[in-house]
Structure formats: C-alpha cells, structure tokens
C-alpha cells in the first residue's frame, strides 16, 4: 500500500470527522459518501481509480475557486446595483459567466490566440499531441487546438447571429400579435402553427437542400425555423401585459402601436425573453452542430465543432479522446449558458432559494 492511498483515506476521514463535529450537514454527507465510494472504487480499480477521483475533485475545486474569485472580482469592479446582484449569484452562475467570457474572447481574438491558421496543414494525419500541436492533428494534419479556437468564432458567432434573428423577428411579431389582437393575431398564429407542425430538422434539411448550404442561408433558415417558438413565448408574455391599466392608459393617450410595443410592453417582457434567449441559443448551437455533422451546416474547410466531431469520429474506435474535445467544448458552453440562464430566470421570477 502506497503513501498516496494512506494519505488519501486519512484526509477524507479526517475531513469527514471535522465537518461532522461542526455539524456541517451537507459537506459531511458529501465527504463521507465519497469515502465509502472510494473504498469501493479502490477495491475495484486500484490506485489508478483513486487518482482519477482525486483529479476530478481537484478540477471541481479549481472550477469552484475560479468561479468564486471571478465573482468577487466582478463584485469589486461593477457598480453597486450590479455588484449586489453578482454577489448574491450562485457559484454556478459566475462559473458560467466566466466560461462564456472565455469563449467570447477566444472567438473575438481567434487569429491572435491560435498558433496556426484555420486550414493550415502542419503535420501528419492524426498526429499525436506534441510541443507544436498541443492537442495533436486532425485527419488532414491540421492543428486541432487552432481549429478549436476558430471553431468558437464560427459556431458561436453563427449561433448568436441566428438566435438574434429569431428573437428580433419572433419578439416583434409576437408583441404585435398580442397588442393588435383580432384577425391579425389569428392569421399570424395560424401561420406559426403551420410552420411548427413540420419537424424542425427535416424542414431545415429540406430548406438547405433547396437554397444551397452556405453560411448565409444557414443563418436565415435556422433563424426562420426558431422564430415561431419565440413568437409564441413573446405573444403569451405580452398577453398578460396588454391587459394592464397602464397599457390602457397609454392607448387612451393615443399612443401608436410601435410606442406601446417598444416602450410599454417590451421592458416588462424582457426578463423571460432574455432567459429564453440563453436557452434557445443552446438549442440553435446544437442544431447547427447537428447539421454540420450531417454535412449540411458549415462547410469545410471552415472550422466548426460539429463537423470536427464528425471528421475525427473514426478515432473513437482507437480509444483516442481527440474527437471528444470539440464535443466537450460544445457541452461546456451549453452547460455554462444554462447556469447563467437558470440564475437569470430565478431572479426574474422572484423565486426564493
């Protein structure tokens, strides 16, 4: 039995005792169940598994520490109102914010950060990681790390644009339908129902085949397909707002529909719409990745996480993690955005802990 194993169990048991003594219920439960689980895993997989657990725990702790410092940092630099909101945010939210920030920086400064060009062939096909290519090469010998950075720009940028289009058009139409009402509302709602009746992925494949798979049509087609969902939400939210007396007062003042929508209704509908924006962004993101995987999304040689997974998929059978890295990038961003959105929804709905 090595020192590592002794120290490992010693620390866990000591920590469990300390938390139990100070009646910290949830940390104790966590530590003690980890101890028992470790005994089980130790028997099953030996020292290697314990190392695995240690690394995971260390990573989680590092993420939590990072999120904590980032939250404190934001709390110090922001103005008092925003600072209070940030300080009361859960760690998951600040972790999500941090990750999103990192992705945005990567996307904006991709040429500066990436060591090689997007389509530059550096080494052999499927080259293993070395000093030059820290994550190795892809099926054509391009640097995976550089393509990952450029992929952030393409995938995230396109997803953002697409979501923005869907939201601007969906919100506007939804608010108009709710405010004007009557047959305008009826016609718009029925059109939306019709669009939603067709399965989304099939519809997207159809439209992309008709109009050709380039970046502009991709953005417009997905934006168009997601508009109905936003429309329905905006219309439902606005439906509760248009019956308020302040809307009646504005109508009686003789205000135009445009003023009603932008000045009176939109500010009150903003919170759920922003939260929905985050969620919808993830879906669009996954839809683009799916389309790219199917070969109708972003076209080579443009780097994109979805196609990167597909192109390197053969490596999975050799037990190499390379194709999982772009997949992990997608997963991390999706989870992070959901952390942030959860927090915003929580704030907007006024729920308590």
């Amino acid at each position, binding site marked *: 039995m090595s020192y590592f194993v002794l120290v490992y169990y010693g620390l866990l048991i000591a920590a469990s005792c300390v938390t139990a003594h100070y009646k910290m219920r949830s940390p104790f439960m966590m530590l003690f169940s980890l101890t028992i689980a470790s005994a089980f895993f130790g028997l099953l997989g030996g020292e290697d598994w314990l190392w695995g657990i240690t690394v995971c725990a260390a990573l989680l702790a590092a993420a939590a520490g990072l999120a904590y410092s980032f939250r404190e940092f934001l709390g110090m630099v922001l103005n008092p109102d925003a600072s209070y909101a940030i300080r009361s945010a859960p760690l998951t939210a600040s972790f999500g914010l941090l990750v999103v920030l990192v992705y945005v920086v990567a996307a904006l400064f991709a040429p500066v950060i990436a060591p090689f060009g997007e389509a530059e062939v550096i080494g052999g096909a499927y080259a293993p990681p070395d000093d030059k290519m820290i994550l190795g090469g892809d099926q054509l010998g391009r640097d995976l790390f550089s393509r990952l950075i450029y992929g952030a720009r393409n995938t995230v940028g396109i997803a953002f644009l697409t979501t923005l289009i869907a939201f601007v058009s969906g919100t506007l139409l939804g608010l108009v339908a709710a405010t004007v009402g009557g047959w305008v509302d009826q016609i718009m709602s029925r059109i939306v129902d019709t669009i939603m009746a067709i399965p989304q992925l099939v519809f997207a494949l159809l439209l992309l085949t008709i109009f050709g798979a380039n970046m502009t049509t991709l953005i417009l087609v997905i934006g168009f397909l997601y508009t109905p969902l936003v429309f329905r939400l905006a219309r439902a939210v606005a439906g509760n707002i248009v019956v*308020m*007396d*302040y809307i*009646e*007062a504005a109508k*009686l*003042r003789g205000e135009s529909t445009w003023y009603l929508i932008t000045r009176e209704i939109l*500010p009150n509908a*903003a919170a759920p719409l922003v939260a929905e924006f985050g969620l919808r962004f993830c879906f669009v993101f996954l839809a683009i990745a799916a389309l790219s995987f199917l070969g109708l999304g972003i076209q080579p040689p443009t780097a994109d996480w979805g196609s990167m997974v597909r192109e390197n998929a053969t490596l999975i059978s050799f037990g190499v993690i390379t194709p999982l890295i772009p997949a992990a990038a997608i997963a991390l961003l999706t989870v992070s955005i959901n952390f942030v959105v959860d927090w915003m929804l929580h704030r907007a709905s006024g729920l308590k802990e």
Partner: protein
Amino acid sequence: MQNSKHGVLLNIRDLRIEGRSGEDWTEIVHGVDLTLRRGEVMGLIGESGAGKSTIGLAAMGYARDGCRISGGKIEFDGMDLTTTPQDDLRALRGSRIAYVAQSAAASFNPSHRLIDQHTEGPMLHGISSREESEKDAIELYRRLRLPNPDEIGFRYPHQVSGGQLQRAMTAMVMSCRPDLIIFDEPTTALDVTTQIEVLASIRDIVDQFDTAALYITHDLAVVAQMADRIKVLLKGDEVEEAETREMLESPKQDYTKSLWAVRSFERPQKPPAPADAVPVVSVKNISAAYGETPVLFDVSFDIHAGRTVAVVGESGSGKSTAARCITGLLPPSSGEVMFDGEVLPADFRNRNREQLRQAQMIYQMADTALNPKKRIGEIISRPVQFYLGLKGAALKQRVDQLLDQIELEPSQYYHRYPSELSGGQKQRIGIARALAAEPKFIICDEVTSALDQLVAEGILKLLDRLQEELNLAYMFITHDLATVRSIADEVVVMRQGKVVEAGPKDVMFKPPHHPYTDLLLSSVPEMDPDWLTNLLEERGADNIGEAADV
C-alpha cells in the same frame, strides 16, 4: 379543556416579528401583548403596514415567507406555539385555530366543489366521517343563511357570488368547531349590501358556537359591529386597547382620534351649474353591451365644469362600463357622448389628440396603472411631451411643477420606480399623470377603495384642491357612500345597468329615497356598535338576503 369557559384562550406576550429586506432582518412587530378569552371577539385595526395580519398569522404560530418570529411567547390554551413542533402545529391549525382570508375567491380551489373542500378538514383531522361532515356542512350553510343550503355545496366556487363564497368560507372554518378563528379583512372586497349579510352571519355563528375570534380590518365601523374589544396598532406597536364602546366614545391617544376623525371630511356642496351652461361631459341615452350581453340601458347624465358627479352602485351595476363608454374603450350600441357640446366619436381610435387630451382617467389599482419598469419622471413627462410638445428644461420644469402639485418632493421622487412608493404615493402619481395632459375632465374609478382611510382622505383632499385650482370636472365612480358624502356635488345611483336615481347630493341624502338608494344608504356601517343589530331588526333577520332584490 382545563380552562373555564371564560378562561384565557390566547395569550401573546411581547411578540416580536422580523421581516427580511435584502440580507438584513428588520423588526416589524415590536413587542405586542394580546389576551383573548374564550368566546371573545377582538378587533385589530390599523393602516396597512401596521402588522395586523402578521400578528393574526402569528396567533397560529405561523410566520409568512420572509418573516420570522424572533421573540416573545404565543400561548394558545396553555401551549407555547413558538416552541411547538411543526407537526403538532399542523394538527392544531384548521381544527382548533382557523383562518378566513380576505379573498374567498382566491382561497377556494376553483376545481373542487365547495362541500368537498368543506369536508376535507374534519376528515383530515379525524373528527368525523365524510357523511357526517357533509350533513354538518348543510346545517352550517343553513345557519349562515345561504340560499338552497342543501344544494349550494355541490357547486364550484365560480358558480356562487362573492358574498356567498365568503359565507361558505366561514362555514368551512367552522367545520371543525375551532376555539379560535382569525378573520383577515373578510368583507373588505365586498359591496356594502353584501357586506351586511356576511357580517350578520359571521356574528351569529361566532355567538352560537361561542368561538373566540380575532377580527382584522381597517374599517372602524365594521369592527364596531363585530368586536367586544378593540386594539389599535400602528407600525407594529400597540397604540391602545379598550372595550369597543369605550374606545369609540373616548379614544385616549391622538392617533386613535385621528383615525376616528377621518370620516368627518366633507367639503361644502357647490351650487348647481347655471341652467344655460354647456356641460363638459354629457352622456345621452347610451346603451352598451359586451358581445351579446347588454350591460347598460339608456343611461344619461351631465357633468359640469368644476363639479363632481359621483356614480354609485354595487359591482356589476354598470358604473365602470359607463366610464368605458365615455373614454371610447367600449363604443355604445346606441346614444352618444358629448364633450363641450360636441359629439365625440364613439371609438377612442377615431378621436383626435385634442379630444383624447381633454378627458383623462385615474385608476383604482395604482399598482397596475403605472408601468413598473418606468421611472416616475418618465411616467409623468410622457403626456406632457406627447400632448404639449415640451422638451428638455421646459419639460423637466413642468414635471417638477406637477410633482409639487401632488405634494411629492420632485428631487426625491423623479428618479424612483413605482415599486419604491407606497400605495397612496402611487395613486398621487396616477393623478399627476392625468393632470399632465391638462384635461378638463377626469374619471376617477374607485381611486380610494384600495387605500387606507387616512391615506384615502389625503387623496380626496388633494383631488378637491386640484378641482378648485383648475376648475376640473370629475366623474367619481365608487361604491363607498362615505366617499360620496365627502366629495360629491351630484349623485347618480346605478343598478343593473340603469340609472335608478340622480340629483344633487343634499337631496339624495335626504329621504324620501328610491328603495334601492335607501338600501345602499342604510347598508353603510356606522360607528355605533348597535347599528347592525338595529338594522337587522328593522329589516327583519330573515330577508336581509332578499332585501337586495327590491
């Protein structure tokens, strides 16, 4: 029951309750004592924020979300509720302590029949079987004088009227024969005529079963009918407590005296407008319908400059519909609305900006009448900008002037959001927004009914002063006759979409009345503790329900 019949049932000592604001806890009830004997009814009165409801809930050992009981003792029949475990408290609530909420409509589950909800309590507490408690429910419905007691329980909450629902609620809390009932403003949301039925039945049933009760309300005249003793609260402190009669006749504290004096505000009635004057607003024979259902029948009245016309009636009488016809939200099916001698287009969309500017409206619920995402400055400046085209410094100056007019300090309120204001202040902002258009005519739709009496009086005085200064014509929609008495020049009584009676106030308040006007007038609670008893005798206890159908 170890205590004698008139032993102490509830004994609250030095009760302190804290509420959370942000991350801090602030004390909102500062050490209140309260002693309630068996079979005794105590009235808790005070403005909103006085802590009445909080104390009422604490008497059940309960603190609302964001509140906690931080000190003191709550002894119920010898048990200290602050230390009783949650499970025991749960067993106690509903069976020995019961609670009647302000809005029965919101307290009943809309998807279960009344009797199913009634029998749930006794069955849950193992007091009686379903058959027994159903029989008991029907008996209670009968005692509470609900129509068709045998069948009414098998209806859903939306199928009975508000007053009946409130009585069904009272029957429900009675189902376990509790020792203590907490009534939290049970009649505040009801019309005066309906209120009487509910008050009378609550009083009877509490008498019959010798139940102790805490009666929470802000209406002094109501509490005078119901309570044996009255406790006055102000901002979480007790002001004074005394027997009802003694309290009404000789209040000791200044605050209590000021509460008592509220109802005395009455401005002198103005002389009627000269016969040849053109009325600002003239409603001529309008009828209106919502879809196929007619709601207004041939309604006519005139409103002159500088005068207030009060439109009175129960809910559903068509008074708000008349206002909607004037504003053009609901184009009448026949008849017309004249403004300064000219016919107004029926639909507000066809009116020009000038016509819209001249008639403004103040709403009942200031909460929903002000956009919560806009600052006070923006809310008031929009009409000034929109109608009068003022910009920049001139606009700011005008808004400051308006804020001054409604007695709010401009520098302090200009940048606030509506949620940072009290109910009365919000209502003032609603007034300022109406004034900002510089109108000739303002519709006040139940503007004071959501406010405490002291605050409401402030609003009435403000409206009166503005009328003097600006020669405004008011249409004052209300169901509260005390408000009519204090501010109206002319009164229009409406019922089921028709004008029943109309005329100058002094004539209207003197007999002989139309029977419906008489019913309305006599239903307004008075400060005399014997008022309800006398009234019931006069009307005959059996037909108070039918009295509404003269």
